[in-house]
């Protein structure tokens, strides 16, 4: 007989989780969160809020590198953080592209209007 590390109730040695509280009996997960996945997310957020393009492009690159790294190493976690960074990076690039396109159109229109 063993005891649950969460609630202290008696559990069978074979039980995968504590029947009382559902706490897993196995050792806590050893997976570490990949730091560059967090970095990609933060770059993606800053790319949308403060400086688009300059930070959105690195967000996509760092995010995809982090995802590749996590896929190869099963002890690393944080794929969804990296994916959110990549998505926010593309949103930032999209917003910047639309902004630049409107700027060019306005410039062309004003030059054409002057003639």
């Amino acid at each position: 007989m063993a005891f649950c590390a969460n609630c202290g109730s008696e559990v069978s040695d074979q039980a995968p989780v504590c029947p009382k509280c559902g706490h897993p009996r196995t050792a806590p997960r050893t997976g570490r969160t990949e730091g560059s996945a967090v970095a990609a997310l933060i770059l993606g957020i800053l790319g949308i809020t403060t400086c688009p393009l300059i930070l959105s492009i690195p967000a996509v690159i760092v995010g995809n590198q982090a995802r590749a790294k996590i896929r190869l190493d099963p002890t690393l976690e944080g794929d969804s953080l990296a994916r959110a960074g990549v998505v926010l990076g593309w949103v930032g690039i999209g917003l910047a592209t639309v902004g630049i396109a409107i700027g060019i159109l306005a410039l062309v229109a004003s030059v054409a209007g002057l003639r």
Partner: protein
Amino acid sequence: MAFCANCGHETSPQALSCPQCGHPTGVGALTTFEYADFWTRFAGALLDFLILLIPSFVLNISIVPFLGGLLLDFGYHWLMVAYWDGQTIGKRAVGVRVSRPDGTPVDPALAAGRAAMRLVSGFVLLLGFIWAAWDPEKRTWHDMVADTRVYRVTRP
């Protein structure tokens, strides 16, 4: 590593009871694996908001408007969740805790990602927070991205 006060068996620093004899370690709070409901989380978040209100006002007028408050919000939620047993002051007051789905603690890098995504949840008219009201697992957007859950806890 820690040791049980009753039988001397080695216990993990997060363990609430000794795996050998079941003696409580006096650390932290019991996870119930019940999802904290929206209004409970709302009350906790409101308390955290009120705690940060004056400091972020001071930062906003002394550093950069808007950015100072955001940095404080990020830092508070990151460091509290990472180093205070998955809880902020508001979360502790209402008896809930952030953990991974299996109840294991959130590591500092994951807590940073969650705190960053929390800002995004707030940007869209708080939609990312309100999401917890109808999500079957009561997740906000930052819970989804970081793959965390907020469970109710009880004190032994």
